[in-house]
C-alpha cells in the first residue's frame, strides 16, 4: 500500500498539512497541487510560513497532520529526485572548506553512507560550478566569496543533484542583480527541461517576470495557480492584509490578466 502512487500526475501534492510551534499554528490545513514543469513562487508576508512549508514537505520539521506526495510517493522514497537549497544564512560560511567541496556535498545523497566522493564526483561538481560561472572560484574558501557567489555555489550544489523537483528557499535574497538574473535563467532552463521548481520568493515586483506559477501563503494557502490568474490585487490584499496599500501604489494591476512573460522568450546565457 505504501508503494501505491497517489496523485502521480502532480510534481507536488500536499493535503491537509498542519504545522505548529507551541500550540501556535505556523501552517494551517495546507492543500497544494503543483503540476510538473512549472516554476512556482511561494510568496507571502513575514511569518506566513514559507520556509516552514518547504521544511515540512521535506520532513525537516514535524507536522501535526496531513500528507505530502512528490511525483506520487512520500518524500522518503523520493529523496534522490528532490533538490534542496536552504537559505544562505542557514549555514556557517566560515566553515573550513572550499566552494568545490560544498558543491560535492550535493552528491552525498547518491553516494550514500560511507562511500567517499572521488574523481567522478569532483568532475561533476566542477561542471555544476561552470554552469553558474563559478569555476574560477572552485578552490576558494567559502567565506572569501561574496553573498551572490555563495548563493551560486548553493545553486550549483542543487544542480549537481540532478533532481526532478527543486525547492529553493530565498535564493535571490541579498544577491547582486547579475547573480539574480543568472539564477533566474538557470532555473528557467531547468523548468524548460521539464523540472519543477519551487522558490520561496520575497519580491512581489518580480513575480510576474520570473515565475509562471504562484502560491500565495499566509499560514493557509490564500490562492494558487498560474501567475496570470492568481496575481490579482484582491488575492494579494487577502495574503498581505494592510500592507497591500503600499503595493497598489506601486503599479499593481487591477484584477485583470497579466501580459505574456517577456522572460520566457529569452534564450542564451547571461554570463
Amino acid at each position, binding site marked *: 500500500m505504501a508503494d501505491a502512487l497517489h496523485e502521480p500526475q502532480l510534481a507536488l501534492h500536499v493535503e491537509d498539512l498542519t504545522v505548529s510551534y507551541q500550540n501556535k499554528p505556523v501552517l494551517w490545513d495546507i492543500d497544494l497541487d503543483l503540476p510538473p514543469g512549472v516554476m512556482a513562487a511561494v510568496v507571502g508576508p513575514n511569518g506566513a510560513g514559507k520556509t516552514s512549508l518547504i521544511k515540512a514537505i521535506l520532513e525537516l520539521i514535524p507536522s501535526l497532520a496531513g500528507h505530502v506526495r512528490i511525483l506520487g510517493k512520500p518524500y522518503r522514497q523520493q529523496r534522490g529526485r528532490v533538490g534542496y537549497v536552504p537559505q544562505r544564512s*542557514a549555514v556557517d560560511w566560515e566553515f573550513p572548506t572550499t566552494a568545490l567541496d560544498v558543491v560535492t556535498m550535493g552528491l552525498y545523497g547518491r553516494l550514500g553512507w560511507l562511500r567517499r566522493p572521488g574523481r567522478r564526483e569532483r568532475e561533476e561538481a566542477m561542471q555544476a560550478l561552470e554552469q553558474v560561472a563559478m569555476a574560477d572560484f572552485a578552490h576558494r574558501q567559502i567565506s572569501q566569496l561574496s553573498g551572490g557567489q555563495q548563493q551560486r555555489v548553493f545553486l550549483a550544489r542543487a544542480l549537481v543533484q540532478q533532481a526532478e523537483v527543486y525547492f529553493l528557499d530565498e535564493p535571490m535574497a541579498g544577491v547582486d542583480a547579475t547573480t539574480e538574473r543568472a539564477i533566474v535563467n538557470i532555473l528557467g532552463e531547468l523548468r524548460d527541461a521539464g523540472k519543477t521548481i519551487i522558490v520561496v520568493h520575497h519580491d512581489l515586483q518580480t513575480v510576474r517576470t520570473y515565475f509562471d506559477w504562484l502560491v500565495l501563503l499566509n499560514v493557509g494557502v490564500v490562492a494558487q495557480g498560474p501567475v496570470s490568474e492568481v496575481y490579482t490585487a484582491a488575492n494579494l490584499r487577502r495574503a498581505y492584509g494592510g500592507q497591500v496599500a503600499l503595493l497598489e501604489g506601486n503599479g499593481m494591476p487591477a484584477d485583470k490578466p497579466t501580459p505574456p512573460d517577456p522572460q520566457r522568450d529569452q534564450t542564451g546565457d547571461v554570463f
Partner: protein
Amino acid sequence: MLASLMERIPVMIMVTGALVGMAGTLVGSFLVLSGRSMLSDAISHSIILGIVVVWLLTGQQTGPIQTIGAAVTGLLTVFLTQALVRTRRMRNDAAIGLVFPVFFALGVLLLNVYARDVHIDEHTVLLGEIGFIWLDNITIAGYELPRSLVAMSAITLVNLLFVGVFYKELKLATFDPMLARALGFAPGVLSYGLLLLTSVTAVAAFDAVGVILFVAFVIVPPATAYLLTERLWLMLVIGCLVSVIASVTGYILANYWDVSIGGMMAVMTGVAFTLAFLLAPRHGLLPRWWRARRDAAHNRAAIDDSAEAKRPS
C-alpha cells in the same frame, strides 16, 4: 632497571598528554565548528556523578562498567539540556549551565560523604594527576604500561576510526544539518555518536587530566587549528600537532618550574592559540594589521599620483 623506568616515565607522561589532546581534537573539532564546544564542558563535569555512582554500586574505579556509567551520565546531560531547550523557555547556554553544575555538585557531594579516604578527591577531579599515571600500571604483552596511557590509546583509536569512517557524514552534518537530514543522513544520530565518544574520552582522560583540563584539550587545539587552515582535514591534523607540541613543551616547562604538569600542558595549548591568533597568515591579528597598513599606504600613493597628474604642467 630503575634507570630505564625513570627514562620511560617522562615519555609516557608526554605521550598520554598528547593522546588526550588528539582524542579531544578529533571530536572537539566538530563541536567547535557547530558552536557546541561548551557541551564538552558539561559532559566532562557531569561524568563525575556517573563515576561516583558506579564506584558506590560496584566498587570499581576504572574499567568498562565505569566507562559505560560515566558515558551514560554524559549523554543524559546532553539529553536533559536539549529537552530544556525544546520547551522554548530557556536558551541553549542557560540550559547547559543549569544541568551540569547540578550533576557535578551531586557527584562532589557523594564523594564528600562516601569517599573521604579514597584517592579520588576534588583536586584530582579538577586537574587529574598526569604526573602519577605510572603508579597504576597494567601489563600488556609483557610491557608494564600506565592504565591511563592504554585507555587513552584505545579511545584515540576509536575516535580516529569514527571520524575516519564517517568523515563525509560528519562534515555535512556539521556544515549543513538541514541538507544532511534532507539527504537521509541522520545528523541527530551522528551528533549523539559524537557526544557519546566525547563522554567516553572524558572518562578515559579523567584520571590523567581531570575535568577542567580536559575541556582545554577538547576546545583549544581545534580552535587554534581553525585559525591556521581553511580545510577541515587539515584542521584535524593541525589540532593533533598542537596537542603533541603542547604536551611535550608543557611537560618540560612544568619540570623546569616545578608546577602542575597537566596545568602546564593546558597553558601551552593556550600559548599556541595566542600565537595563532596573533600570527596566523590569513586570520592573525598582526598580518591583518600589516596588510591594512600596506593597503592604506598603497592607496595614499595612488591618490598622490593622481593629484600629481592633475596638476597643470
